[in-house]
């Protein structure tokens, strides 16, 4: 288990990167502007790429450099580019109808983070890893999950929902780098490509939504009920 016997420098670098990406998730939660979501997501992906490289360096997993490169390129450049193309095609720059204000959403997000900290601590304790970076990794992983779901739940724009899903994935990827750095490359790469296909599909669907529904807000999707 990598997290159990790390030297303090590595441990603090990992912690810092994990926390920075959690903060970036909060940035998304606190904004209404679609462009901000996009920048925060791209920055978060770069932080995760840096984390992969750091884990590769300190943990002795050279293949993680490749993962870091791919993450930086695909998650940090290509995915944001695809999303940017979707934004450009829409004439929506921000969330218009917000039924939970960004400030309240931030508080909710903070509550989620506290909840996941208790869960992670409990698991970490039962594994004998209570004072290691593993607890933090698990916390960030689970909180980004919940924050992603919060985005999905309180935002209506199609684009916010896509980015919500991408945060969910980022959270898993981030946690996986610290907790299971030895996870076979094959799986990581396939999941990365899978993500690209997902976003491509979203792009096509968004175009159809605009044409056939006339809106990309989920508030307008209420024909099918009961």
């Amino acid at each position, binding site marked *: 288990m990598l997290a159990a016997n790390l030297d303090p420098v590595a441990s603090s670098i990992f912690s810092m990167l994990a926390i920075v990406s959690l903060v970036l998730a909060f940035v998304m939660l606190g904004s209404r502007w679609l462009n901000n979501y996009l920048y925060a997501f791209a920055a978060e992906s770069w932080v995760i790429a840096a984390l992969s490289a750091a884990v590769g360096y300190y943990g002795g997993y050279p293949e993680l450099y490749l993962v870091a490169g791919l993450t930086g390129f695909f998650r940090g450049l290509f995915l944001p580019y695809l999303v940017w193309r979707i934004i450009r095609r829409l004439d929506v720059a921000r969330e218009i109808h917000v039924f939970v204000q960004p400030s309240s959403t931030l508080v909710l997000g903070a509550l989620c983070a506290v909840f996941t900290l208790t869960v992670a601590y409990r698991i970490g304790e039962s594994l004998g890893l209570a004072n290691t970076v593993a607890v933090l990794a698990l916390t960030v992983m689970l909180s980004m*999950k919940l924050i992603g779901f919060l985005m999905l739940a309180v935002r209506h724009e199609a684009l916010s929902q896509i980015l919500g899903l991408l945060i969910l994935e980022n959270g898993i990827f981030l946690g996986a780098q610290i907790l299971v750095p030895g996870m076979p490359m094959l799986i990581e790469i396939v999941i990365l490509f899978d993500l690209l296909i997902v976003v491509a599909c979203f792009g096509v669907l968004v175009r159809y939504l605009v044409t056939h*529904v006339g809106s990309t807000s989920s508030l307008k*999707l209420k024909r099918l009920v009961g």
Partner: protein
Amino acid sequence: MDAALLSIVMAAPLAAAILCAAVRAPRVCEAVNLIAAGLGFVCAVPLAVISRNGPFFHWGGYVILDMTGAWVLLCAAIVYLLAAIYSVGYMRMLGHDGKLWGYYALFAGFALTIFASTVMNNAGLYWIAIELTTLVSTFLVGFERVAESMEAAWKYIIIVSAGISIALLGTVLFYWAGSFVLGPTYDMTWSALRDAAPRMNRELVILSFLLVLVGYGTKVGLAPMHTWLPDAHSEAPAPISAMLSGALLNGAMLGIIRYLEIADTAGAGALARDVLAGFGMFSLLVGALFIVRQTGIKRLMAYSSVEHMGVIALGVAFGGILGTVGAFYHMLNHSLNKSLMFFGAGNAMRVYGTKRINRIRAVGEKFPVSGALWLAGAVAITGAPPFGLFLSEFVILRAGFQQSFSWAASAMLVLLIVIFIGFLNHFRAMYFERDPRPDAIGTGVLSAWCVTPMWLAAMPLLLLGVWWPAPIWDHLVAATRAIGGSP
């Protein structure tokens, strides 16, 4: 032998998808898809038989042919064949000849991803296969490109992707749990996880299992994660609804069954089964409530799928020989029966030009033959004898009372009765109520392509109800033993 058959099962839909995209002539696409489905079925039957001597591993251990997987594969192949036959008639009625190639290419691709998910030996690759089923079928759900189907497609991909990402988190945590036993890098095969399970941390296994259950449960359509299901099933073209309901849901249930086996071995089985039973029970409840007050014909069928996935989840949760065997048998019966029901609903929708139950009247008089088949299917799907679902539900109920799940079994019984009344009441209205409005009388005729698959689904269903063939029983018992299907 098994490697060759398995290759054919996978290669046939793949080739069909490529051919359809390349040729683009509607009649050719129909034929190609039909041939692929036929080949798939012809090879899936011997694969199920051969799997008794297994499990077999292929392609560097990434593919496994075991009894459980082969059974789900067989169910999927049956639905694919029936839906491929029905597609010919249904899609001609729909009249989108120009983009029919896209439909058939995606259709074959959808079948391929479902088939692939049943034989994945690696938990990560299984996840990817399930994710791919979503991506392919989204465009099938939205095939008709009207506002409703786009809405359904959007909800489908968002809800299911979010759900599936929970399953990914669970998968990663399972890998982590295994890494304490097997070292940092190992192949995450089902057997590796199961062998390591007794030495895994129990709390971590519980957390991981719950995440996986909620994640794949979304795809299975267990309530309360079922919300995509009625929309997607009702807006997709009818053959695709049959595939979603009869093939895809089982494929996702397979993942839950495999992880349950690991949770059992890790000593977390009791809790896992309680939670699964809870989800099953809630699905039955939601199904019952929405069936009683339903107004849309395909949504009625969709909620019935939620209900039947609940029944299968209960069977798996009850466990023991009876529960698990009952659940497997129910998969087959449900696949046959739900195909029949969606085909009938598709016919009614086309002929009457509406999705609303209260506009479909006097079906029996207008269509004596296919109407009778559909009615028989309705009786069957509510679990009445002499059809297959009666037997499987009965066995699952017995398992519930045997395995100290009497509370769940009793509640299940009550809900099944409610559903029986609610579901058949809609059919009573559609067959025997009069509507003075002239437009409530359907127009048009049904081609043999639309009626034949109904026969092909109804007859085995009747047969499986009056006679549970010994080879099937033996296969299912052996499959249950192989996955240690008792708590």
